[in-house]
């Protein structure tokens, strides 16, 4: 399937609009694609699909539970439903339907879940979604993806159509800062993308954390610290090889996510490390088991220490830890 995005498109389009344009292109070729929303067509930018494919667009009003149940029924009958809602409503409001109708039945539904993390910062905790990665990655049969920017979102939407099974796609409100200039960087579900070389520390990030991690790596490079950056866009199935290679190569790992540190990307990486028997200096950046205050997204990222400055500071902190000073530490791995 051909999609035709350039970074020029992307600078003009919010991530939601990129999703919609991509879906429209794919829908031209695939008549099984339908779009569903629950009164968030405007907010999730799916309006263009409605104009182009009015017979394949379903508006359910403010009734998310029904929408996800309907999507499951449609998928079991052979359609490929793309649902558009806010991440908080997919993962909390309608979770029973997502769990039972979609994941348990392995229904081929693609759940586009926007306004993720604190990207709708001004709206407060009722509209922040800082638990969804933890919730959704515990759903069997479900693939969980957090694209880094609009360009990656286009790739993820295409990959989701090609993949047979339910996919949760977590995107932000508004514009994401550009991580990618082109589509063709070899996107693959479950395969982390290395965005910076490094041997001193690895920063593993997802979503809006990726751009910040790349910036942090550049700043650290200026002071002689080589920070590897991994864009861990797929939280499940997670790229174990990339994590373990980072552990071996850099012995220090920091995770960055716009999400509670419990159970999200940091939790997933920690599980891989713990089960491997290897260990390394490790820190999870994100919301430290709290709800976020209200504010602009960039301010909230700073408050939670997941902006460039926060990441740089954490790298310095981590580099200062000297495990050799600890008599209980036997670094024989």
């Amino acid at each position, binding site marked *: 399937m051909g999609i035709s995005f350039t970074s020029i498109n992307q600078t003009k389009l919010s991530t939601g609009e990129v999703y919609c344009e991509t879906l429209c292109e794919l829908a031209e070729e695939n008549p099984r694609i*339908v779009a569903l929303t629950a009164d968030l067509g405007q907010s999730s930018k799916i309006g263009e699909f409605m104009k182009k494919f009015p*017979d*394949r667009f*379903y508006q*359910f*009003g403010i*009734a998310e*539970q*029904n*929408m*996800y*149940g*309907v*999507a*499951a*029924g*449609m*998928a*079991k*009958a*052979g*359609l490929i*439903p793309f649902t558009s809602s806010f991440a908080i409503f997919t993962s909390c409001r309608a979770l*029973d*339907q997502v769990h*039972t*109708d979609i994941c*348990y*039945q*392995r229904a081929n539904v693609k759940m586009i879940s926007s306004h993720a993390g604190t990207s709708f910062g001004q709206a407060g905790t009722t509209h922040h979604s800082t638990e969804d990665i933890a919730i959704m990655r515990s759903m069997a049969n479900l693939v969980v993806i957090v694209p880094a920017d609009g360009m990656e979102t286009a790739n993820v939407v295409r990959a989701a159509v090609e993949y047979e099974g339910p996919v949760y796609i977590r995107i932000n409100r508004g514009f994401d800062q550009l991580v990618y200039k082109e589509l063709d960087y070899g996107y693959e579900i479950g395969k982390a993308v290395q965005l910076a070389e490094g041997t001193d520390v690895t920063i593993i990030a997802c979503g809006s954390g990726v751009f910040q991690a790349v910036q942090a790596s550049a700043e650290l490079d200026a002071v002689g610290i080589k920070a590897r950056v991994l864009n861990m866009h797929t939280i499940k199935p997670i790229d174990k090889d990339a994590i373990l290679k980072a552990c071996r190569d850099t012995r220090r790992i920091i995770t960055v996510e716009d999400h509670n540190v419990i159970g999200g990307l940091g939790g997933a990486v920690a599980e891989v490390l713990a089960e491997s028997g290897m260990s390394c200096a490790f820190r999870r950046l994100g919301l430290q088991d709290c709800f976020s205050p209200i504010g602009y997204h960039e301010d909230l990222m700073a408050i939670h220490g997941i902006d460039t400055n926060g990441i740089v500071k954490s790298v310095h902190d981590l580099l200062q830890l000297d495990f050799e000073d600890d008599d209980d530490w036997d670094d024989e791995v």
Partner: protein
Amino acid sequence: MPLTKEELLAIEAKAHEHRRTIIETTLCAGSGHIGGALSMIDVTTLLYSRFMRIDPDNADWEDRDRFILSKGHAGIGFVAILADIGYVDRRDLETFNLTGSNLGIHLDASKVPGVDASTGSLGHGLSIALGTALAAKQLGKEYRTFCLLGDGECQEGSVWEAAMAISHFNPPNLVTLVDRNHAQIDGMTEDVMPLEPFADKWRAFGFHTVTVDGHDFEAMNDAIREALDRKDVPTCIILDTCKGKGIGFCEGNYRWHYGGITQEMGEEAMRDLDAYYERRVAAIEWRGEE
């Protein structure tokens, strides 16, 4: 078409066979949702005898009619029908609820042929049925979708989300049926959380709503035929039923939502079911001689 006497007697015999299977399966499993299975078995028997267009040799036939058992806990009743069709090996009923069995309280669509949705969490089935029906329209298919809800289940808000959407989209070939057996786990529906005026609620949501005796095959047959013919608005058929129908110690008693039975109770239940069936057949025969 109305039912002939022969057809009516054949459906009565089939329903009786299914009621006995429910008790046999419950005895193997040790316990089961006897009450709600016995209240829904008549309508389900009728659907599969007269309406469901399925292929006994291919449960996944893509043009088949769909049946969504929203009250998924009545799986022990539904599985009797699936075994009768041949989708489930009758011997497997003896493993119902046992570790490693494909058959359990809430039937898993991925493991049991003929099950169109994995239900159990209440208030989900009607949305799935709507999606199934909308997909038929989208894909240009003519299969019909029947959804059977429990009445207690209609306390779930999601049922009314689905009802609102069905009324709005009015997909062709979707029939909503509610097993109004008046009972739920903690008591009678009107004591736990009243549903009445129940039919008015469905009407207010835009449904053509009819209430029929859910143990009267002729009345149900007419209502379902009418629902399939009616295209201007969706239809909801409220089936006035009795929980545990046919077994003296179960009938109308909400405590038989779920329960275990001993061998002796099973024998008593079978005697009751046989007597119940004989009374029903006698009534048909008597009427025929009128």
